[in-house]
Every structure is written in C-alpha cells, then in structure tokens.
C-alpha cells in the first residue's frame, strides 16, 4: 500500500486552495537498471478531487509527472470544516484515497 498523501486545504479569499503531495515512484519506463534491463513504467494515471460529492478537479497523468507528485489547485464553493477527498489510481491498478478538512 502506498504511503498516505499529504493534503492541505485552506481558504484563499473566497476560494479553497488545495495542495497535495503524493508518494509515488512515477517510473517512466525509459530508464534501465544496472544490468541494462528496462525498468517497467509505474506511474499515477488518474487523480480525482471531490468536495461534497462533486468533482472539483480530475487529471490524467503520464509518466512525465515528477516523482512524488505535487499538485495545487483552487475551487469555489467550499468553506472551513468541509472535507476535500483525493484519490489516485496508478497503471498497476493500485489506488489510494485520502482526505483533508478545509481550514
């Protein structure tokens, strides 16, 4: 199981600014190991953020997103105490869901 995400959600004016740090290798499939064998690609493909059951951001990622991906975005309609839920799924079918409370 992958390590938990670090999520911060805070009001920035009338919007909620969300910052997420995920823990993932994001292996490109381009690199070779010491023996010259290609290291298979292993990366997050889909990320979805929801607030009160509504999707506020969804993303499709390729292996070019940096290791331990960082993502920040802003959405309207949230208030302190609400929860923001973030889920990712990688190309091996592993997934991880974490949530944060808006401060």
């Amino acid at each position: 199981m992958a390590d938990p995400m670090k999520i911060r959600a805070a009001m920035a004016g009338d919007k909620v600014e969300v910052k997420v740090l995920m823990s993932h290798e994001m292996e490109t499939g381009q690199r070779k190991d010491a023996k010259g064998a290609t290291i298979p690609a292993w990366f997050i493909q889909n990320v979805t953020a929801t607030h009160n059951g509504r999707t506020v951001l969804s993303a499709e990622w390729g292996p070019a997103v940096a290791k331990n991906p960082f993502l920040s975005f802003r959405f309207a309609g949230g208030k302190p105490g609400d929860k923001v839920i973030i889920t990712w799924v990688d190309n091996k079918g592993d997934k991880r869901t974490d949530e944060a409370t808006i401060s």
Partner: protein
Amino acid sequence: MNSSRRTVLKGTGGAAVLGLAMVAGLFKPGSAWAEWNKAAFEVKTLNDAVKAMGGSQASESKDITIQSPDIAENGAVVPFTIASKIPKTEAMALLVEKNPNILAANFSIPDGTEPWVNTRVKMGQTSNVIALVKADGKYYYASKEVKVTLGGCGG
C-alpha cells in the same frame, strides 16, 4: 552461452508484461473515473495531441500563462503553474516538446474550479513547454522555453 535460452527468457518477459497490461485493463477503476486517454500520451507533437484529445487544431493565445523557472537545474523536478483567462476553460494540459512523449498531464477543470494548476514534471532536456487549453470546445496554446542543465529522464 545458449542463445535459444536467451530467446525463451525474452519471450516469457514479454508475456509477463502483456499479462500485467491485461490485468490493468480488467481492473479499470469505476465509472466515476475519467478514462485514461492512452493515445494522447503516446503522441510526439502538439498537433497529434490535440487530435488525440478530439480536437482539430490549436491556436496560439496570449490569455494562457506559464510560470516556471527559465533555467531548471534539475530536469527531474521542474515546477510549472499554468493558468488560463479564456472564458469557459474546460481542460488544461501541460506538454513538454522534447520528452519521449509530449503530453505530461491533462487536467479537467469543472465549473467553479479556477483554471489554475500548479504541478511538477520531468524534462529530459532543454525544451519548449506548452500549455494547451480547451475552452468552449476549442483548443488554444502558449509555449515557453525552459533550459535544463541536468536531464530528468535518463538512466
């Protein structure tokens, strides 16, 4: 060295990869998930990426901004902020022209979410970076050159 043994090893390796791909296909996430646009992540040029996303062509726009370092010391982690002032922005993508595959990330921006995203990508070498925006069904782009002193895609 027995060469036929080599071949057999290679063969099983390939089969294993295929097996993994099939498993990944079988265990597709639920319907709440956007599909992963495999074709778009395999193309090499902006035009092909636009086509893979279902558009026909993209026109340059001054209403898209890309914030990033002009010179990235470490290509493995290059921070980008992309923003769009085009009304009805529905999606924003980040593309790195000289990476093995041009598309790095594509974000869907629902109503109520600001067309503003900050993330970090890998860059193999100095390259133009393109922010591609879909707004009201049409595609627009802006680009910026980022110099890389140490590539992030090599071994």
